[in-house]
């Protein structure tokens, strides 16, 4: 095992990137991602990595450079947040369509406007249909370990898709916590050399990337992406489980906390899961049958697994750290509730949109959500609520 370090989420991501030692990193600074790239630039300047660091003029160019480097056949890492991801949007789709396994950290931050630099999930949710694998992480330790898992999942020959490693802006990106690291050699052995498929610079085996693809074949190529996403689910499961076995960790595509005998549960992602565990502990000590389902893998969405985990519960509240304006609830709510439709006896499911623009969520608020679930006398009927906003 490697050293135990005190690392903020961004430094955990940078340290993992150093150990991965990718061929190319192309990124543009944006709060709250900046310190990851600052740290990584230091590694480059000190000669601690062999990486070609491309300092581009925008996020659109950052992802474009990543696409080029990945098509050439290199392992590639980048990172961004909020408006940076929005500026990348076009090329984010191109990266997944060209089936390029790039790893991108997103320090989840509210999209403008009004301008706000703090954490919510609106950036990542804006690209949830883009064909990227999306993993949400609770704390710096998870961010660190997920960086290596991301390589394994995205680079798998049945998948070949880019992976977004999400962490809550400021809350996780700047929070210093204990991180148990791996030795450099453990990392190198685990991820192995990057296996290039269809290198753009292999002149013996020439290949054209991105030709015009009209009504005769575009649909077929989209169908291939669907298939790759289908494969990504079992691959993500086995990668996370193997990783846990190999390095004495406990990862899976989701984490359940006191769910087995629970009647009432919260479903959420990222750092809020930590606060929710604190509340579950407190309520369990009072004998309340409450639990938590924390999703790590959001794309591909593990509908069957979510259904299995939540079957038999009485009432469920989904905590969504972004809204989907005009939709029936936030993005996590619509997925979770949809997944439960096949059950004969469906639990009540309600949505709580919270934490927009970095608004704090505290134990009292989460307790009030559990209290509502526990006091309901009938099956709750899919209402959408706003937690922690004034004027309700």
């Amino acid at each position, binding site marked *: 095992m490697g050293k135990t370090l005190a690392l903020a989420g961004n430094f955990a991501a940078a340290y993992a990137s150093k150990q991965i030692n990718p061929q190319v990193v192309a990124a543009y600074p944006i709060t709250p991602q900046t310190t990851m790239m600052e740290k990584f630039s230091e590694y480059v300047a000190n000669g601690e990595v062999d990486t070609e660091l491309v300092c581009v003029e925008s996020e659109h160019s950052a992802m474009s450079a990543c696409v080029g480097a990945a098509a050439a056949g290199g392992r590639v890492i980048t990172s961004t947040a909020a408006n940076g991801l929005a500026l990348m949007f076009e090329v984010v789709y191109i990266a997944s*369509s*060209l*089936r390029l396994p790039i790893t991108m950290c997103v320090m989840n931050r509210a999209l403008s406007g009004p301008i706000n630099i703090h954490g919510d999930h609106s950036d990542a949710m804006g690209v949830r249909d883009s064909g990227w694998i999306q993993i949400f992480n609770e704390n710096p330790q998870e961010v660190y370990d997920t960086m290596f898992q991301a390589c394994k999942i995205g680079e798998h020959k049945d998948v*070949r898709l880019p992976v977004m490693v999400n962490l809550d802006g400021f809350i996780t990106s700047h929070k210093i916590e204990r991180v148990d690291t791996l030795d450099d050699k453990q990392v190198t052995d685990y991820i192995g050399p990057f296996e290039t498929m*269809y290198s753009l610079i292999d002149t013996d*085996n*020439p*290949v*054209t*990337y*991105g*030709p015009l*693809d009209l009504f*005769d*074949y*575009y*649909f*077929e*190529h989209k*169908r*291939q992406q669907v*298939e*790759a996403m289908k494969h990504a689910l079992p691959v993500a499961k086995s990668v996370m489980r193997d990783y846990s076995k190999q390095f004495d960790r406990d990862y899976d595509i989701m984490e359940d906390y006191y769910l087995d005998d629970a009647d009432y549960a919260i479903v959420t992602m990222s750092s809020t899961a930590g606060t929710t565990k604190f509340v579950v502990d407190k309520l369990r000590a009072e004998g309340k049958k409450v639990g938590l389902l924390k999703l790590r893998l959001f794309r591909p969405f593990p509908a069957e697994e979510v259904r299995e985990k939540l079957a038999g519960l009485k009432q469920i509240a989904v905590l969504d750290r972004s809204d989907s304006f005009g939709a029936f609830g936030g993005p996590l709510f619509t997925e979770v509730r949809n997944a439960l439709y096949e059950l004969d006896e469906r639990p009540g499911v309600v949505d709580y949109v919270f934490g927009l623009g970095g608004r704090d969520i505290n134990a009292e608020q989460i307790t009030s959500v559990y209290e509502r679930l526990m006091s309901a006398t009938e099956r709750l009927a899919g209402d959408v609520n706003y937690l922690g906003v004034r004027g309700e």
Partner: protein
Amino acid sequence: MTLKGWNEVPMAGLVLDAGNAAEYHTGDWRTERPVWDEEKCKHCMQCWITCPDTAIQVKDKKMIGIDFDYCKGCGICADECPFDAIDMIEEDLEAE
């Protein structure tokens, strides 16, 4: 040509071999057809130089005709010919 299923083609629309432009019959696109008047032609090769689809057929330094598998009917040759030896007429799509 029978079109293939999603599981029979390379991923991402990649084209896995080079120099395959000849397999793409741009003649499909034609809505106008160049008609060459051999009498007026001075074999100056202006059409051959300017045709974007190398559809002008040449033998022994003489223009001998147009390859309609590739001629997309753009009319550049007709425009460039200094001797008005090429005329563009409407393609008879019904006859195809």
